[in-house]
């Protein structure tokens, strides 16, 4: 009796405070998280490995975006990319082909921004989106499910090579194959469709509209440094849009508090077209 009264008082206090505890979503106990001596998750614990000894990237990952003064990155590390501007770390900016300036001007009003239009967001935006992504590592493939805008990528790790550049089926996400270089997963992707098409929401690398085209060969080097930290070095090799390849760094941290992915059906109440005068 006494215990249930205490519980009722506690419940009343919780209900009075908002939000109510029962509404917390979706923190389930998460198995396999290494704990420190204080009982909290130890994000610097060693990298988890699969049964064949390779680093295991499986987990839900959040971007940990940060900026630094352009050109100030430590030696041996590429500049940090951000969701809004992947070239923000380059003192001289990105090595654009001349035609890109006009496209950036056109894109500066964000009317064609794929993020806002609920379209696939391009490889770097997906890496840097504030919504989580889940990496599912299987023996013959790695699947990345991005919570934002229905993103889903398959990276084939069964030894197959990239298809010929210019295959008749271009992809929003490109076609990806991965192989190991020590503890680094090297992923190559080609056969994007990109910016030089009649789909203005295609071919965006960031919120300001830095483009990619169907000439892009994307190289991503994934490194799970320890339990908590993922570093991805992304090289853009796209001679149609850029005069030379360049590389940026993406950093992510693993989710260790039991948070899970939540359904995000972007089109169910998309008001962007209406608010920008292109739909009634």
């Amino acid at each position, binding site marked *: 009796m006494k215990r249930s009264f205490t519980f009722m008082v506690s419940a009343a206090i919780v209900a009075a405070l908002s939000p109510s505890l029962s509404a917390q979503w979706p923190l389930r106990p998460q198995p396999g998280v290494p704990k420190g001596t204080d009982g909290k998750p130890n994000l610097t614990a060693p990298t988890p490995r699969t049964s064949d000894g390779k680093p295991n990237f499986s987990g839900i990952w959040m971007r940990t975006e940060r900026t630094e003064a352009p050109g100030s990155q430590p030696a041996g590390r590429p500049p940090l990319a951000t969701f809004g501007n992947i070239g923000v770390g380059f003192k001289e900016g990105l090595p654009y082909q001349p035609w890109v300036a006009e496209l950036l001007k056109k894109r500066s009003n964000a009317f064609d921004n794929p993020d806002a239009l609920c379209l696939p967001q391009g490889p770097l935006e997906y890496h840097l989106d504030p919504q989580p992504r889940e990496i599912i590592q299987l023996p013959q493939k790695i699947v990345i499910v991005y919570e934002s805008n229905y993103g889903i990528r398959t990276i084939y790790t069964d030894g197959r090579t990239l298809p010929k550049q210019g295959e008749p089926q271009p992809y929003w996400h490109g076609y990806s194959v991965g192989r190991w270089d020590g503890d680094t997963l090297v992923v190559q992707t080609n056969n994007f469709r990109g910016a030089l098409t009649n789909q203005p929401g295609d071919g965006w690398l960031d919120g300001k509209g830095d483009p990619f085209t169907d000439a892009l060969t994307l190289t991503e080097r994934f490194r799970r440094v320890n339990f908590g930290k993922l570093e991805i070095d992304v090289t853009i090799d796209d001679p149609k849009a850029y005069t030379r390849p360049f590389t940026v760094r993406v950093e992510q941290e693993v989710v260790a508090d039991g948070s899970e992915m939540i359904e995000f059906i972007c089109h169910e109440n998309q008001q962007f077209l209406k608010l*920008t005068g292109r739909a009634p």
Partner: protein
Amino acid sequence: MKIKAVVVMVGIGLLLAARPIVAHHAFAAEFDANKPIKLTGAVTKFDWTNPHAWIYIDAKDDSGKVANWGFELAAASGLMRSGWNRFSLKAGDVVTIEGTRAKNGSNNANAQTVIVASTGQKLFAGANQGQTP
């Protein structure tokens, strides 16, 4: 003992809720940071949706006329992570909303703060509801 545990759990829950939530937007294309608005009125509809939840209220505008206004919040998925849900607001609740007006002149705005008029309680906090201009 049980009360203390509950309070600690709520505290941790609120701390964990402080994540940035959703990009999905091009704020400057839709809303004008130089056009603030503040209205008080009764909720007519609460759309618990992605990519944004929306609150609709009947409010008196500057001329004293009652009109229905829509205010854009963060994504439902983001609000959920901060502990809110589709019952957090219901028709008839009176709220004061501060926000920035839609560029197209419609009765819409992006919500920065939502406050329950009778208690002063801040709703949907912790969910990055206001987009940065």
